[in-house]
């Protein structure tokens, strides 16, 4: 399957990979440039090579997760050791998206791709997001014999980042949270934790989530050309709130020209796609070249951030606060 061509011909489809069993096959052809444009696709190239683009490294294992209420997949790096644990949350398009978790596992993290709607027996359109479900996921991960404790990380994007932020605030085992193009308040679906609706901060009269209560570290990743939400403004508001409360536990990476769909490097820019739930094409934004550069840079930064805060020797020992 030619992913690049697929994207160009059908810009409305976002390619999602079956990560364990097959790579994307990308064929690169060298053609005679004297050919008219219309004939190039149909003509045999002078030489061609097919590249395999895998979403998992050799030895990465996949374990289906169906414990308690949890639905997802755990990706473990090869080898004996314990690995820093990460929960991977996508937006609420439903299903289980695994490719980022499998890539993280290929880079040494025990990554739990966690579904929360429209997957197996999970509700199609949850009326509320119950944080207890995500707490269960955190505890599951920390209990696993191959997961290094005492805390875990989160990589989250869009609506997933809304949840990731709440998890960081309410669950002290969450010590490193990556928030990609997410809001700093609860948007559309209400969140509930221990019977209480997660909205207003007690300290202020705003609707913004009380991010200053979180004990872990944050990495905000913003695509400045995000056309679906005002990511830059929300991240700036959130970091301002932290600053006002005397906290310096955050880093903000803001990428001019990058859009909403910041993914692992070399993923083609999806600047718009169809949301079947809304029967609409949504614009995500992003300028091709700058978005690509942002994906490359941010992916490295995400891994650096997670290693720094989840692996003790990287930060000189990090103890879980009591």
């Amino acid at each position: 399957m030619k992913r690049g061509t697929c994207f160009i011909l059908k810009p409305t489809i976002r390619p999602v990979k079956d990560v364990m069993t097959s790579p994307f096959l990308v064929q690169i052809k060298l053609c005679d440039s004297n050919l008219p444009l219309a004939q190039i696709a149909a003509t045999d190239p002078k030489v061609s090579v097919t590249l395999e683009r895998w979403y998992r490294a050799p030895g990465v294992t996949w374990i289906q997760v169906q414990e308690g209420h949890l639905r997802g997949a755990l990706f473990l790096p090869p080898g004996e050791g314990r690995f820093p644990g990460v929960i991977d949350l996508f937006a609420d398009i439903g299903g289980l998206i695994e490719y980022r978790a499998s890539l993280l596992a290929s880079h040494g993290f025990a990554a739990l791709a966690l579904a929360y709607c429209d997957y197996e027996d999970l509700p199609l359109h949850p009326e509320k997001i119950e944080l207890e479900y995500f707490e269960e996921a955190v505890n599951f991960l920390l209990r696993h014999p191959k997961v290094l404790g005492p805390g875990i990380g989160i990589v989250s994007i869009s609506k997933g980042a809304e949840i990731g932020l709440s998890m960081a605030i309410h669950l002290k085992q969450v010590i490193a949270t990556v928030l990609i193009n997410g809001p700093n308040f609860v948007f559309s679906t209400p969140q509930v934790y221990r019977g209480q609706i997660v909205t207003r901060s007690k300290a202020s009269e705003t609707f913004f989530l009380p991010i200053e209560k979180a004990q872990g570290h944050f990495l905000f990743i913003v695509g400045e050309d995000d056309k679906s939400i005002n990511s830059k403004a929300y991240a700036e508001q959130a970091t301002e709130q932290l600053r006002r409360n005397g906290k310096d536990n955050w880093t903000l990476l803001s990428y001019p020209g990058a859009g909403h769909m910041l993914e692992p490097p070399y993923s083609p820019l999806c600047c718009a796609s169809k949301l079947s739930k809304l029967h609409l094409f949504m614009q995500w934004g992003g300028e091709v070249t700058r978005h690509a550069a942002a994906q490359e840079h941010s992916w490295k930064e995400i891994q650096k951030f997670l290693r720094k805060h989840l692996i003790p020797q990287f930060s000189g020992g990090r103890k879980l606060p009591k």
Partner: protein
Amino acid sequence: MFQLTATPARALADEPVHIRVTGLPPLQIVTLTASLKDEKGYVYQSKAFYKANEVGELDLMEAASIGGDYVGVHPMGLFWSLKPEKVFRRLTKQDVMNSPFYVTLNLYDSVYVQVSTTDQPRASQTVERWFSGPGVQRVQIREGRVRGALFLPPGEGPFPGIVDLFGGRGGLVEFRASLLATHGFAVLALAYFLYEDLPKELEEIDLEYFEEAANWLLAHPKIQKPGIGVISVSKGVEIALAMACFLKQVVATICINGSNAIYELPLRYKDLVITPIPSFMERMQIDVLGAVRLRHYKGDARDELNQKSVLPIEKAQGAILFIVGDGDECLNSREYAEQALDQLRSHGRNNGRMLVYPGAGHLIEPPYTPLCYASPHRLSSRILLWGGDPVAHAAAQEHSWGEIQKFFREHLTQTRSKL
């Protein structure tokens, strides 16, 4: 009771429509939609969200759209922001004489992000958009080699004559000619390939074909002497400029987004052959949606080596008006127009003028034509990018249409005659 009025309900496609709503709850936010089905059955739609005033009225001449296909005060926004359900289709009226486009305007009493087939509008009106006025005549032309359609205004005439040339899409495109005829010009919509017994592929520009057409038009009893005009767009501009250079009977030429030099195919006129400037396929670009931007792929008309391909515009005796969309993604139209004007100036001529429209794209058409930003092209399996920002492009179409008619009236109408 909600009332939606759109006046005039029956009008020329280049005339504005005044849309008003009354009977709304005060300050109610409503949805206005427009839809039309073209002659092939493709549906085009647009929508905008407006807030009624304190007395429950809405006047699109004054109210600003809050969201939808356009924002701000745009009385004709629902028309020029119409978008095809099947992406990248270009809206063009085929039968310009016997039927209009029917545009249905619907009012919904709240915000409808998506209108489903079961949603009922609270008020509705259909307006007719005609491409020819009462009394305009269409005559199919098959004279000698000439193939096209002549549109004559009502009355005895004589009328100022214009040849109307479209570009690389081929065939016969009539809607601009029929509209101009409704405004008092006798217009020959001229095909030059991919029509009737004309060649299927354009392999060279044979200027003698166009000379034959010009002479035929001028000889017509209802056409004013001694000179005619030419209006052209895209590839048609090379032909129109060549006509202006070599045919004395051409006294007024309008060039919309084209080049002042010969590209891709040679131009031949009697003993003269102008060879094309080469293009560089390797410079083509693919934009984020997968559409091809050709703006950079033509060779440089200012390069010394290419001067033999540049049309000798200083030979043109009539007036020339360049209409340029600065957001043209297919051609560097501004560059070509500026070079042509420089060439005129360097020969001490001042018969050229340029109108540059920032934000307008390649396909500048009569007003209220929806922006076609990209569409399939017969020469490529890909979509070609034309460019244009919707609001700026709509404004350019409105303004340039007035300028086009003014230009032809100024340079074609004999001072002593009445139209």
